[in-house]
């Protein structure tokens, strides 16, 4: 009844081509933003931030990044973990080398450095496609992790081989290090997520996004109608790695604080982010959020049910979680290859006709 175009007259081209053409969507968007910026920070606890909000927000950025590469440009990557590691280590080196510069700038710069590395590893995509490329990105994953483990310069010759984030302030409030208040780390991640989603959404709507999608749907045909495959593929790698790098930097600096590269940014991380975009929906920004939310809340939810309710041991629940995630991946690929985003789309279609579906 509320959710429809009727009565919402557009009087300019700008209004006509806006992201949310339906008025209800726009209000919802502003309400979500207002709640997450103005309400949640006042009620947030350490447990909520560490178990739910921060992983969700940070993975959402990574998922947006991977979704640009895999969902929009059709280049499957299994190197997300490695690129997140690049972001984390770049951020660490910048933080320790230039302690006076604002941490937020470091995070963005870390994204930029990751974009360069990602572009370099994206070069083979011009020659190889599909899962050949997926395997080729494994080279990035394993090589980068090995590099950060072996070259002591990257971890400032620390004895443990770990990197740990020193305390840094933004507007006089600590955002990294052990004294960070819960709301501060939440807000930092939220700001990055919001800006990333805005940039990603508008990039994918524009000329560049259309080039990516044309390349995804059929690269030879795209080339024939004048899309430069070199530019399309490499920009996809660059933009995607930029977001993945930012998420890696946040994951290290704001969320964990200390990182051992093989453990945190291993191949499992690559798969986890890939699963997020499959479950959430390939080629959809909303899907990145939905998938991240789903896979972050699932373990917490299972732990609540399994450990606290049934009294099962934690390792059993961990195994069960593997089974469930695996099953869900297969289920979604069989039943709804477009993921949660498609369910959302269908629900919106139904809503537009409700309550008179005929």
């Amino acid at each position: 009844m509320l959710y429809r175009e009727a009565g919402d007259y557009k009087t300019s081209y700008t209004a006509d081509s806006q992201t949310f053409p339906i008025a209800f969507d726009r209000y919802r968007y502003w309400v979500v933003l207002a709640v997450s910026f103005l309400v949640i920070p006042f009620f947030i606890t350490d447990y909520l931030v560490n178990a739910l909000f921060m992983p969700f927000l940070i993975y959402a950025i990574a998922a947006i990044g991977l979704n640009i590469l895999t969902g929009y440009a059709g280049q499957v990557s299994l190197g997300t973990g490695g690129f997140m590691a690049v972001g984390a280590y770049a951020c660490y080196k910048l933080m320790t080398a230039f302690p006076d510069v604002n941490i937020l700038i470091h995070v963005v710069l870390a994204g930029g450095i990751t974009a360069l590395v990602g572009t370099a590893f994206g070069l083979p995509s011009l020659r190889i496609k599909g899962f050949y490329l997926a395997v080729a990105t494994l080279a990035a994953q394993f090589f980068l992790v090995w590099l950060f483990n072996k070259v002591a310069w990257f971890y400032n010759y620390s004895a443990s081989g770990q990197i740990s984030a020193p305390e840094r302030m933004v507007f006089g409030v600590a955002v990294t290090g052990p004294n960070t208040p819960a709301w501060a780390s939440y807000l930092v991640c939220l700001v990055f997520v919001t800006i990333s989603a805005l940039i990603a959404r508008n990039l994918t709507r524009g000329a560049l996004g259309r080039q990516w999608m044309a390349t995804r749907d059929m690269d030879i045909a795209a080339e024939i109608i004048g899309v430069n495959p070199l530019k399309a593929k490499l920009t996809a790698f660059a933009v995607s790695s930029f977001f993945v790098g930012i998420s890696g930097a946040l994951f290290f600096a704001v969320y964990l604080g200390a990182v051992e590269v093989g453990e945190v940014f291993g191949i499992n991380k690559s798969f986890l982010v890939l699963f997020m975009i499959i479950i959430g929906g390939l080629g959809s920004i909303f899907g990145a959020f939905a998938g991240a939310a789903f896979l972050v809340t699932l373990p917490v939810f299972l732990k609540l049910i399994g450990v606290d309710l049934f009294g099962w041991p934690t390792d059993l629940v961990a195994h069960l979680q593997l089974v469930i995630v695996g099953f869900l991946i297969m289920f979604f690929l069989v039943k709804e290859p477009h993921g949660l985003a498609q369910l959302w789309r269908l629900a919106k279609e139904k809503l537009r006709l409700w309550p008179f579906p005929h």
Partner: protein
Amino acid sequence: MSADFLYGIEVVLNGLMAGVMYALVALGFVLIFKASGIFNFAQGVMALFAALTLVGIMEGQVPFAHIINATFGTELHHFGWEVPAILAITCTVGVMILFAWAVQRFLFRHLVGQEPIILFMATIGLAYFLEGMGDLMWGSDIKTLALGLPQGGSRWIEDATAGLGGDDFYGFFIDKLDMVATVVAIVLVAGLIAFSQYTKHGRAMRAVADDHQAALSVGISLNFIWILVWSLAGFVALVAGIMWGAKSGVQFSLSLIALKALPVLMLGGFTSIPGAIVGGLIIGVGEKLFEYLVGPMVGGATENWFAYVLALLFLVFRPQGLFGEKIIERV
């Protein structure tokens, strides 16, 4: 001959043996890929699952004991009998065939005609599912596989070759298990080739690999062939699982060898059984030699990534691999 040179030869020999082990895993990939175009990421986990099942049956473990105990407060763990190896292997083959049927019936039948990359991701999901299932059924502790396969270095070869070098050369160290694996791999490949050349179902399998539509039109059941191929891949996985399990214990890291098999395949070509063998040997020798020659200079552990980078560089120049069919794209 100088000792360094001889040690180099030893590295190459051991690399060849390791390559055979990689090739064992890669074989299963090639079988499924040829017949159905599915790139089966779960092959490594299938090896793990098969080995776990074998150990579980041999030792008479109660499947799902962990979850049953946790739910009903019981103390089940073993049935209290031990199954002889031959019988246990037969049972495990049965389980893998059942698994092949289930995969075909509940997963890939619904995905016919999807893009290869979707199928690939489905097998990643399958890998996670199977990994969790194996842990749930048999527990996740490291198990030893007591099949009585020979272990350790071969004294005979060591003594026989000790005279080749000077005083600081003690002969080639070659693992007996690796030699067994080599023999098994040769038998397995010979068997597979004989099967696909001289039997009715083998010919049907090749026909399906050649052209699905044409095979269908002469009355070959695609469904049956796919179950057959997955069963064969399950069998190959069992063999690989036994060999790797005997080498390093039956544990989670077994499933990671699947990742190592990927560059092997890219090098050899996805559609060629000899390619899988040759690719395995090249990767095995390459990474051992690289570790031996360059490893000390850059801090070691290059085996983690060398195979992937080699495959990556190779692909840039020859995208279909050494023996693969030329990739032709139509618009």
